[in-house]
């Protein structure tokens, strides 16, 4: 990506936008088109994402990690503009470190606190930003509130609303959640051009964070028609 980026300003001034020598995607913003998901189970949460980052029709990164740690047991799933979501995540990570570092608390920050920090940035700058973020984690015993047991997001999420409505039920255990997330992401990646690559999963619980990757040939297969 570094080489074309260095060439663009020079060529951009000399050549018209219709010129074939400079492909269209060099002028596009980098976007994580995406399918992202988070499912809660008793004791933790499973999050998952695809791994495709696009600039127009070009896949800039086919092994992207869209599951970004914000704190020890809090993650965010990023969709939208890659630059915007990375910048917001950095800001929230900084604030949470200040929160638990400077203001010495006995307990780790609540997931809801992280979500509120995201909301503060996303709402205030909503005209300038393109970002859809899922915040998930395991945070604190004293305050338990089911904000949303399941959430999906990103451009690929529209294709799996029906699948999620019919297949999710409350009371799933960790392995069932992992299977459901992997299946849903595979289905979305099959249909959405902006989602693809590998499936990245993470399980966040009191014990810690466990990450895994499901490669393309190991993804669940469905009847192709």
């Amino acid at each position: 990506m570094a080489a074309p980026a260095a060439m663009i300003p020079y060529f951009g001034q000399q050549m018209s936008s219709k010129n074939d020598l400079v492909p269209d995607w060099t002028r596009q913003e980098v976007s994580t088109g995406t399918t992202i998901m988070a499912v809660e189970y008793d004791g933790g949460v499973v999050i998952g994402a695809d791994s495709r980052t696009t600039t127009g029709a070009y896949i800039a990164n086919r092994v992207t990690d869209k599951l970004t740690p914000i704190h020890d047991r809090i993650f965010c799933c990023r969709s939208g503009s890659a630059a915007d979501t990375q910048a917001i995540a950095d800001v929230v990570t900084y604030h949470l470190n200040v929160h638990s570092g400077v203001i010495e608390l006995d307990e780790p920050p609540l997931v809801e606190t992280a979500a509120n920090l995201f909301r503060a940035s996303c709402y205030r700058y909503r005209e300038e930003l393109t970002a859809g973020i899922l915040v998930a984690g395991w945070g604190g015993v004293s305050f338990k509130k089911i904000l949303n047991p399941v959430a999906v997001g990103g451009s690929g999420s529209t294709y799996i609303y029906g699948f999620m409505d019919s297949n999710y039920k409350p009371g799933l255990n960790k392995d069932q959640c992992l299977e459901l997330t992997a299946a849903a992401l595979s289905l979305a990646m099959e249909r959405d051009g902006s989602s693809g690559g590998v499936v990245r999963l993470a399980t966040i619980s009191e014990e810690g964070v466990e990450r895994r990757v499901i490669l393309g040939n190991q993804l669940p297969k469905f009847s192709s028609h």
Partner: protein
Amino acid sequence: MFNDIVPNPNMTYNRFKSLLLNTKNLTRPFLIHPSVQMENPPLVIAAASVLKELCYKNKEELQAGFITAGWDRKNGPQVYVVSLGGMLISQPVTIGGSGSTYIYGYVDAKYKPNMSREECLQFATNALALAMGRDNVSGGVAHLVVITEKGVEHVVVPGDKLPKFHDE
């Protein structure tokens, strides 16, 4: 209640998902005429091709897509899709319309070839119910049409009899 499943002579049904309200009446003359002259009822692909010609030749003016499904003696049960630009392809299962985006995942996961009639009806009802639950411009009742060698059966599932899923 606007019923957008329209019969053509002899067991070919067209499902319309279009903005142009006149398309419903255009295919009948094309298909009734040949079957007056020939002994056999028209082939499903013939009906689909008529629609394809309309869509392809008038692609600048029209915004229309069709699903044509039926039974004929030569090839048995068939499903054809004519997309917006006028491409005609045959598929074992297909979905369309604004609500279809929400059920691509469900249909890909749940469809298997060689289902029985009851399995197919349940699959279609479930898929429609899920889409109607998510799409704001889809809803009301579900109209299902079962087309076989023996004939055509129209099944109507009112909204309160549709399967309920776990959604907020």
